[in-house]
């Protein structure tokens, strides 16, 4: 009777299996074609690994589909059950037929590949044996997996996808490295080169996994006299398909959200001076000059800021040295899957400015604490004003020009009059005046409020604006529906925005009248660019700079440019390129290289103004190269 069963399988599936054999060999040819034809940098056995992983799984899946899924879906197994043959024998015969064909295909392709390998590189018995062992074990596993899947009938594709997604989720969300276990561990990049035994863990888990699949398949075949498999094999309705697709899509979605919301691990910097306070940790590597003092001073600032804004904690801060930086440039790195503010600066630079650094650092720490919420345009000016104000805090009712340099910058940059529109369009304003000047203008606004309403009111306004950490999701649309600063101003200081703006303008005008003379000596700078055609598609950029009044003879000027993306966003300091010029020559220049028509570029000119302690710029202009 077994022979009859075998004959039946042969009659039923011979055409399909013949097609499969042809397709697998075509696949082998296709996979090996580049190596056999050209050699080049590809490795024969490495290509074979890819072949096994792709075509092997597809072939096993198809064989099992033909032998099991179609049989049950067509209910033809009922005829077999009418024969004097046990159900286990029926399943075992099918398994035997399928496994024979599958292993035959694998053996054939493996032998031919090894033959090519031997022809080309000579016989390496141990490598060949290990390749055969790995292919055999992996083939056995995948065939058994496909066999049990075939009993899942109409849900098998969904289970396949679910299995794949689960493996991905395990790999992404847990410490398990899926690519190093089971069949994946056996078919890793060592496959083509490893002459020794594969990792026992990988081999063992492959064999155990394969056995479990086989047991599962047999159980499915025998369970309730095979009726479970028969029920599962029925065709899926259109709605059922949609439901399954949505469930799978939902699974992917859930994994993505979980991955996104996963708690980040803390970053660490060993061998460093550490200063810890409640809610504040600062680490500075010992190789940085005066590391302990630097950690302590920074922690002092940050701890005071935390208390002032009533924040529960700040992310850990790591300060490391970069001696190729000048004293005016600082850099915050991106920590991959870790929490913290990692900063690089040249602490021993000749032009190091401690105050400027701490002002910048406070801003970055607050951005990290609020998960970039403080970068919103509506509260950005508050953030920048606060970081400047903090470094010169404690002035109380003193006039603004007590801090002469900040006052000069504020008067230089503040428009006449300063309106709510300037605050609403703060990024644009900042791009026209430069970051230091804009920060000083913002500082003057906070100082005006402090002078009118006192330090406590200012603190409450700042706490409500910058000291709030929102959950990272759509609820912020509701929570932040009232403009943060305006609402805080009314609630905490009892002041309408217009009244405060009027007070602010009044303060600035007062300072302007007192600093009229130095203000008159500050240069205003203009920059014009032109795109000279080199061909219909290429352009050359020429620039010309003009300033009035002329700065000191030793002042250097620079042309700054940055390539822009399709969407208008802030020009980041790291994207800016500089052409530096001495003051002696003509204020004109040409950029090296050519530009393609259609490119977007932002340009400006900058000049150092010692009286302000910073650069002033001509205002960034965004161009479409035409």
């Amino acid at each position, binding site marked *: 009777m077994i022979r009859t069963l075998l004959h039946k399988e042969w009659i039923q599936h011979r055409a399909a299996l013949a097609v499969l054999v*042809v397709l697998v060999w*075509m696949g082998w040819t*296709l996979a090996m*074609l*580049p190596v056999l*034809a050209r050699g080049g*940098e590809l*490795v024969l056995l490495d290509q074979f690994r890819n072949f096994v992983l792709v075509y092997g799984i597809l072939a096993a899946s198809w064989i099992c589909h033909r032998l099991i899924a179609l049989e049950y879906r067509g209910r033809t197994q009922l005829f077999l059950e009418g024969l004097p043959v046990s159900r286990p024998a029926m399943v075992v015969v099918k398994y035997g037929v399928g496994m024979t064909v599958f292993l035959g295909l694998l053996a054939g392709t493996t032998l031919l590949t090894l033959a090519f390998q031997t022809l*080309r*590189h*000579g016989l390496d018995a141990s490598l060949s044996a290990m390749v055969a062992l790995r292919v055999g074990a992996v083939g056995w596993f995948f065939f058994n997996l496909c066999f049990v899947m075939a009993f899942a009938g109409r849900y098998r594709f969904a289970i396949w996808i679910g299995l794949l997604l689960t493996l991905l989720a395990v*790999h992404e969300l847990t*410490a398990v490295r899926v*690519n190093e276990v089971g069949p994946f561990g056996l078919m*890793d*990049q*060592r496959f083509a*080169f490893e*002459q020794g035994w594969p990792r026992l863990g990988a081999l063992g888990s492959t064999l155990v996994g394969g056995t479990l699949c086989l047991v599962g398949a047999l159980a499915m075949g025998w369970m309730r006299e095979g009726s479970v498999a028969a029920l599962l094999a029925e065709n899926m309705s259109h709605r059922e398909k*949609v439901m399954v*697709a*949505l469930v799978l*899509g939902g699974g992917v*979605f859930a994994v*993505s*959200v979980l991955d*996104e919301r996963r708690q980040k691990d803390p970053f660490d*910097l060993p061998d460093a001076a550490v200063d810890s306070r409640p809610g504040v940790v600062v680490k500075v590597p010992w190789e940085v000059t005066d590391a302990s003092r630097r950690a302590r001073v920074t922690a002092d600032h940050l701890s005071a800021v935390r208390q002032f804004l009533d924040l529960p904690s700040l992310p850990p801060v790591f300060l*490391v*040295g*970069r*001696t*190729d930086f000048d004293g005016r440039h600082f850099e915050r*790195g991106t*920590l991959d899957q*870790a929490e913290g503010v*990692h900063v690089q600066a040249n602490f021993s630079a000749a032009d190091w400015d401690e105050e400027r650094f701490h002002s910048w650092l406070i801003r970055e720490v607050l951005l990290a604490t609020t998960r*970039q919420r403080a970068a919103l345009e509506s509260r950005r000016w508050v953030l920048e004003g606060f970081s400047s104000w903090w470094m010169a805090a404690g002035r109380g009712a003193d006039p603004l020009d007590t801090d002469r340099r900040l006052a000069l910058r504020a008067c230089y940059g503040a428009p006449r009059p300063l309106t709510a529109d300037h605050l609403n369009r*703060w990024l644009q304003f900042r*791009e026209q005046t430069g970051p230091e000047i804009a920060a000083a203008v913002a500082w003057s606004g906070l100082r005006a409020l402090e002078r009118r309403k006192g330090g406590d009111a200012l603190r409450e306004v700042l706490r409500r604006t910058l000291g709030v950490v929102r959950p990272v999701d*759509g609820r*912020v*649309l509701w929570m*932040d529906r009232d403009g943060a600063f305006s609402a805080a101003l009314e609630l905490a200081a009892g002041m309408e925005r217009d009244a405060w703006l009027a007070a602010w303008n009044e303060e600035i005008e007062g300072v302007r009248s007192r600093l009229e003379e130095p203000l008159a000596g500050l240069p205003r700078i203009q920059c014009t660019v032109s795109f000279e055609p*080199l*061909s219909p*598609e*290429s352009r050359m950029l020429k620039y010309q700079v003009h300033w009035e009044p002329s700065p000191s003879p030793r002042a250097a000027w620079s042309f700054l440019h940055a390539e822009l993306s*399709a*969407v208008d*966003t*802030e020009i980041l300091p790291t994207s800016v390129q500089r052409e530096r010029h001495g003051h002696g020559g003509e204020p004109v220049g040409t950029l*090296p*290289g050519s*530009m*393609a028509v259609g*490119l*977007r570029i932002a340009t400006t000119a900058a000049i150092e103004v010692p009286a302000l302690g910073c650069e002033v710029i001509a205002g960034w202009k*965004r161009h*479409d190269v035409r």
Partner: protein
Amino acid sequence: MTPSALRMLCRKEFRSIRPFLFLVVGFGLLDPLFVLLSHYPDQADLGGWLDREAQWEAHLMMFFFGIALAAGLLVREHDEGTLAFLDALPLSRTRIFVAKVVVALSVLSVFPVLNVVSAAVFHGLSRTSLESAFPWQLLGAGGALQAAAGFLWFSLGLALSFLRRYSFLVLALLFWAAIALEEVGWMPIRWLNVFSLGQPTFHGRTWVVPTDKLLVQSAVALALLAWAWWRFRKLGEPGGEGRISIGRRRPILVVVAMTGAAIITIAAWLALLVWVGNDVSERLPGSVTYAQWRSSRATTERYEFLFPEYQSGTIAPLLEHADGVEAKVRGFLGGEETERIRVDLTRPLERHAGLAYWKSVRMSSHMALGDPETLAVLGHETVHVRLDQLSAGRLSDVFGSMRMFHEGVATYVEHRFFATNEPLARSRRVAAVMRSRDEVKVEEMVDSDLLRRRRDADLVYPLGEVFIAALVRRHGDDAPARMARALARPEAPKDLHGVGLWQDTMQAAGCRWPGVIDEFFAELDRLKVEHREFVDSVPRLRGVFVKDGKRLGVRIADPWPAKGSVVCRFRTDPEIDPRFYESPVPTGDTFWVDRADYPGSSIGFQVGVRRFDASQTIYEPWVEVRL
């Protein structure tokens, strides 16, 4: 035909594919829901949506939806016997076909609409004052290309649907054929790559739509649609179904046709194999062919060499010194003796002197075996092998992020132990030029793909060497080995990449990333001064893009340098592998390529200077030009 009958038909069609509409809407809402659950929606501007990966995902969805919707749209009426009811209506088959296609395309278009609308809403919430105009063109072009891709896949799916369950097999064969054709260098196949529509190309504020490619693909799609219409008209007619499609019953004619097709396919396949294997294309009249030499084998204590028999007379010096090479590498990187390293010298390599794979090395058969440079290459590749072993293969898993480490250590060891000073100076001159141009960026050094897209992937050699020299100076000779071992530690965090991976690895190895970076840039600055004369002698070249009928070219606007030669290379896409770059020989002062080989909406070019006193060509950054 009455309008009400057509309306009824459309309503019936809509009811029939309503579950599919739920599916499309469900998947279309996942993205906005994701933003609402895990991001600040008012800080989610269009940048994320324009990202290559996001567009690829959307186009992948269009592929699935297009094919799945088309699969049963027409043939199910026949297979389920409902076609007779439709035929009883006062409607022609053509009108039924049109109604089905229109309703299906309407449902398909829901996905791009949702995709674009959600992106527009989030961008609207996130706009800042820096934006002068709402980016309608970007949204429109992106959405239109998604919809177009949906139409193209739908047309293909509809044409294949008559093959019933074999349709997916044929689809897979079409994919594989396309891959094979691209692999053998048949470039026109790129015109038919629908997935390439999902690769955004921007010029200024404009998303450049690849109009030519879209026209070609639309023409093919319309032809497929016409074919599907013709087949649908014949569906159910006596003989109409059996002639071409494969239904449930298989007449003998179909079996014969299938067998014939299979035999022809196999024959064509074998012919292709033989053709490519023999490289017929190079067998021009009068050309000479030589028999292939057999491989020979020689073993030393630490290596097993495979080499062409004709080199048996020259391999002796290599065999004599090889174990010394391994001993030096092991002395530097430490570790136990392991089994022999297999070195394959039997084949020429296209772009490299050597390559390492786990415990194997391949070196080009064109190398002069007695030359000291061969020992240097062997040392270089042996370092790769040992690093892979020390890291238990993990270095290969994170190759993109750690390529600079891999190549840096290998180049450092090569120069320190096996080369004269001159090759080191040649390498360091390249590093000095890049630094003087301010083109050494940390984010590119730890991202091999980014470096390749912006500048030149091979910069990892000179820059990596300087970096490893800085690492060794700071943390000692064993620092590279410690780092490789640190990667292998079981508790190493997964999925780290870029700077994060470097920091974690160096930290675990007792080294300090910032300190080494600091040292690295300081050393580059020193090299800049040391090689000032060379740096000044390498001109900045200005490539001017020009068109001439069916050719595209780059003219060098500046006088050609007195020293060295000018080169220019082209690419179709920033993502493609460098082996597909085209490097033409100049005609006069211009480098020309054929327009037909660049089907996309843009072309990239990069000019550079090749000097004998530098280890590699020094390139300007890539320039992308709209076509």
